[in-house]
């Protein structure tokens, strides 16, 4: 039987600099990717129709992509943005339009071609841009609120800022990965409302293990490495368990299996963010704490 035991890492072998550099490089690259994407496209990440506006319909009884293109090609006048097939054989078609007349034309064309519209969502561009504004605003408020709380809890600068930087990196790395995939043309994962929920959730989720680590190192008796190992045993279990739960949710609810909306979007970002969190907590946060404990406090 497989055993899940958190390994004890010999942190003595690495300097603080060696520990902090890789996560900072990953963060730097992520920020760079976000800037490049922003420079090229004017948005920080590929935005889905929740933010840009448009229409998404889910069709049953469609035989192929070609049949769909044919059905909506002539006379509908609405440009097809993408066609995706789900595991159950349905097709999800997105259009850039949200115009009433064109929507009705789409419905009529689907009916004429014998497709059954199972679901239909339309968002206006104005609604999308309000969503974008509110989502960004919400993320900033949540992040500032969380940071303030962390400073109140630990009341000293270095440990608090360590948590805040880790959390910031946890949020930026998934966006960086999404941008990397989009920029290299591998796969375009678009930001949805689920992504926003996941990023906010990440603010709450990812600081748990940081709080745990800080708490063990700063507020408990015992040597630094003893405390670290205890905190890691618990923290890694927590994070890995959450990652496994989220991988399960993402895979099962994905378009290839159950094809449920919202859940895979949330799951994917949480998986990426929590994985980044393992690195950030036990390399970046830890190195800052070690510096603070052995050198910072002594000053």
């Amino acid at each position, binding site marked *: 039987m497989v055993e899940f035991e958190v390994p004890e890492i010999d942190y003595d072998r690495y300097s603080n600099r060696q520990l902090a550099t890789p996560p900072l490089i990953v963060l730097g690259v992520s920020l760079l990717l976000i800037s490049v994407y922003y420079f090229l496209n004017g948005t920080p990440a590929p935005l889905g129709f929740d933010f840009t506006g448009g229409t998404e319909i889910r069709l049953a009884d469609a035989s192929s992509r070609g049949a769909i293109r044919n059905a909506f090609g002539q006379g509908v006048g609405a440009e097809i943005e993408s066609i995706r097939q789900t595991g159950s054989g349905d097709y999800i078609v997105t259009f850039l339009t949200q115009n009433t007349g064109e929507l009705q034309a789409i419905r009529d064309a689907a009916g004429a071609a014998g497709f059954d519209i199972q679901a239909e969502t339309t*968002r206006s561009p104005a609604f999308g841009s309000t969503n974008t504004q509110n989502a960004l605003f919400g993320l900033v408020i949540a992040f500032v609120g969380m940071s303030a709380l962390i400073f109140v809890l630990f009341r000293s600068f270095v440990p608090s800022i360590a948590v805040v930087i880790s959390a910031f990196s946890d949020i930026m790395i998934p966006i960086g990965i999404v941008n990397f995939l989009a920029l290299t043309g591998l796969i375009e994962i678009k930001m949805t409302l689920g992504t926003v929920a996941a990023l906010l*959730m990440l603010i709450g989720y990812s600081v748990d293990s940081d709080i745990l680590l800080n708490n063990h190192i700063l507020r408990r008796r015992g040597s630094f490495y003893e405390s670290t190992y205890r905190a890691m045993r618990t923290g890694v279990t927590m994070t890995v368990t959450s990652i496994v739960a989220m991988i399960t949710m993402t895979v099962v609810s994905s378009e290839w299996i159950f094809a449920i909306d919202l859940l895979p979007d949330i799951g994917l970002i949480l998986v990426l963010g929590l994985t980044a969190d393992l690195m950030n907590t036990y390399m970046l946060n830890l190195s800052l704490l070690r510096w603070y404990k052995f050198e910072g406090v002594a000053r």
Partner: protein
Amino acid sequence: MGVVRDNWRIAALVVIVLASTFALFGPIGGGAGTQTELVTLSDDENTVTVSQSTFFLENSTVELTNDSTNEIVATDATIDIDGNVSNVTDTSAVVANGTIDVTGGTVRSPANTSAINATNGSIAVSGEATLRTVNSSVELSVERQQDSGLTNLQYGLDLSGGTRIRAPIVGLHVTDLSIGDQSQLASNLAADLDTDGINVQVRDGAGTVEVYDGGITRSEFASALQSAGFDIQTSDVQTGVTSRTRDNVVNTLQGRIDQTGLSGGSVTTAGDGLVVVEVPNTRPEQVREIVTDRGVVRVIAEVRGPDGNATNTTVITGDDIAGTDPIGKDGRLWRTPVTLTESGAEKFQSRMNEIGFTTGNGPKNCDRDGPDSPLPGSYCLLTTLNGEVVYSNSLARSFATSLNDGTWADGSRKFYMSTQTSEQAQDIKLSLDVGSLPTTLNLSQGAQYDLSYVQPSYAQDFKGLSLLTGLLAWLAVAGMIFLRYREIRVALPMLFTAIAEVYILLGFAAISGLALDLSHIAGLIAVIGTGVDDLVIMADEILQEGDVATGRVFQSRFRKAFWVIGAAAATTIIAMSPLTILSVGDLFGFAVITIVGVLVGVLITRPAYGDILRNLVLSEDQR
């Protein structure tokens, strides 16, 4: 008693789990709602059994052939309601104040039942009945007592199907004005802005002025107010309507949806002045019509002189009408009988006389198209719905006479509004019964709206699939926990505590009548994740090496673990709270479930798990 006192946290958990069970399965719950489903009866599947249901027959109106019988006759089809209706006490099925819409067909009530009750566009069955069609296809919309199976849970659009529209209201408004002559200002503004008088609302008490015309810009409105003598800049003009108008829109829409027989529909407001309309089992184009039609019914007297120039006078508005009767057929035409109010009747009578409609060439002289009329000029009464003429007719001579001698307004004040189709007649009746919308929802290109529709059968699938997804995520967590602790005594209570959290949340949803959507399900799965995280913290802290020698050591470890859990919970609540205030799509539900879940965890389930662990590690005398 000592046992209970020592384990009061477990006891509290048990009590709350029992309470949740009662909320979920008990008779009170949030009160089971109703759900609607569309049933098509045709050749092969020509029967449906309904119990405690209301069903709606679509598309055309059928009247009672005779007030004393309860048989409703139409051509083409027969719908029999077969017996088996319990509690038959009376000999008649009651049809009161209702039109029943049937797509061609007969509704034959069983002869001896009072359990079938038709009111106002629908037929309700309190017992069990079977509907059967003969030789035709009929689409029925059947509203049943919520058949949520085992639980009192209610499901939202994502999981039960239907249409949701979220949109702002068309309008601009200015507040804090000191207004002199209210009606004078209103008519001046309407003239200045070149819009219908019903698009301007002035409230002198509240000091507000609103316009409800999507074609008027903020600067146009500001300059019209400036010409009316107000010191108003474009920046003082706010988009949207006052809260009073918004309440009016919400109530009218709710009434309209209820009256249309689209049961279970709800109209609420969200942040940013948006109105959210959710209607189960209805196509988006239908709901779009409901929220964008003003429902303004007016009768206009069109007088065309010999020179061909027409003068229009509004002689009856919705405000002049006291009530309506069921629509009916009059020869080729459909008509909606209405009764005018006393003042409305007086006004109608005097206006008709003033414009010379009731004498001379007025009666029996309607010719909208032109010069073919035998008499010079043309006098037409136009029935309009939302500004469109649905029918025009002349004034009958006898009617003209009674108006002219002033006796009509003292009589029954009955008036018939004629239309070509039953739909129009029904629309007019509905608009008059519910009242017109002061303004509509804004679904124009630049507006901030969204619309979603999920087919009911497909949404039903989501219910099971998302439950299964949650279950699989929980199993994955369970697997990890077993691998990590390898001790059933620690892992099993942990998993049960985690699932208890979800169970309590579902109980909360049932008792608060929260309609579950995918965002709530996502929140529930997130709660499993955070919940287990915190239980791992507890277990590791309390079970750490070195025995928990005494109750005091346990207490200290419990407190330490709780500090971390409390801090983590606080960060999650802070992170989620923006979503409860800002409107970001449908994420409100996600945030609410996560926040309530964290609170339930910190206050109830996680402390109880601490007690369970203590029982595991402390022997009797150490406590």
